[in-house]
């Protein structure tokens, strides 16, 4: 997939090497959509998704830290983008702020990715228009006739 410019898994690696902080995941959301995401344990996705929805509901929030038994989630909001770092739960709160230096890089990569997406948008923007019951029935007939052709040929 050529659209991907930054590998978030690489950023996770960089953070481990440069700061010695073990990161469970990095994500960037645009409103409630994922723009960038590293590999992430499945159970953390649910926490992160609900957190982002929450952050986007409340306009005044710019930073959130949430600790659960298995993770410490640090979210930084930048306009409609939200950068999320997930670390081990026992990390010191102060250490989280060291992660701020990666925010610009992630935001820049996300903006670039999104502007590329806007370039392809006209391509896929074909929107379905009104279809009638006759149209649907005709399509069903068509595919059914193709199916009988296969059956007759014994494919």
């Amino acid at each position: 997939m050529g659209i991907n410019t930054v590998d978030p898994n690489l950023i996770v690696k960089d953070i481990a090497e440069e700061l010695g902080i073990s990161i469970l995941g990095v994500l960037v959301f645009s409103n409630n959509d994922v723009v960038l995401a590293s590999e992430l344990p499945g159970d953390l996705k649910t926490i992160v998704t609900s957190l982002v929805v929450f952050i986007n509901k409340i306009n005044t929030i710019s930073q959130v830290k949430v600790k659960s038994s298995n993770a410490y989630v640090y979210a930084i909001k930048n306009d409609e983008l939200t950068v999320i770092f997930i670390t081990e739960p026992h990390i010191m709160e102060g250490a989280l702020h060291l992660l701020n230096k990666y925010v610009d890089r992630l935001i820049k990569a996300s903006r670039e990715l999104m502007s590329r997406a806007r370039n392809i948008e006209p391509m896929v923007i074909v929107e379905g228009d009104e279809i009638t019951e006759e149209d649907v029935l005709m399509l069903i007939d068509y595919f059914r006739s193709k199916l009988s052709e296969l059956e007759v040929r014994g494919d």
Partner: protein
Amino acid sequence: MFKLVIAGPYGAGKTTFVKTLSEVVPIETDAPTVGKTTTVAFDYGKIRVNDIVVHLFGVPGQERFSFLWRIVARGMHAYIFMVDSSSLESVKAAVFMYNYFIDTFPNTPHIIAANKQDIAKVSINDIRTILGVKPEVKIAPLIAVNKKMVLETLITLLSEVHRLMYGSTLSPISKGDSGTGT
């Protein structure tokens, strides 16, 4: 003009589905470009049936493309949500995307295609439970390289569109029960 989307995580079988279909019905694959070439790989096909044009879009399944899901799916009439039934992990990997589609397009007719039935490890009932598929949503067994099953999946979807939009049930398709609980 009918817009149909094939969604599902990476590796579910979307590309295979479109390829098999192209062996049965003529599909034009020139994406509607705007003069710019793009490196974004999504499956695309256009099928003409009399004066109806069916646009088929496969959406890239990786979660880092979720901002594209909404773009690709906009204005669709219906979608097939494809899952790889060959392992528990691959079914679980579909949960996030399925939830996204259900939340974002709550009223769009859809079916689940339980693909890779030739090497299936997860039953259709378990897929229903893991994805949280509502009882009224059909789960069709599929082998995406099988032409008949690909056609049956499309017919099942279109019958759902018909049922939901015009409120009547058509006679079942000739072979294979693609309804719930199989």
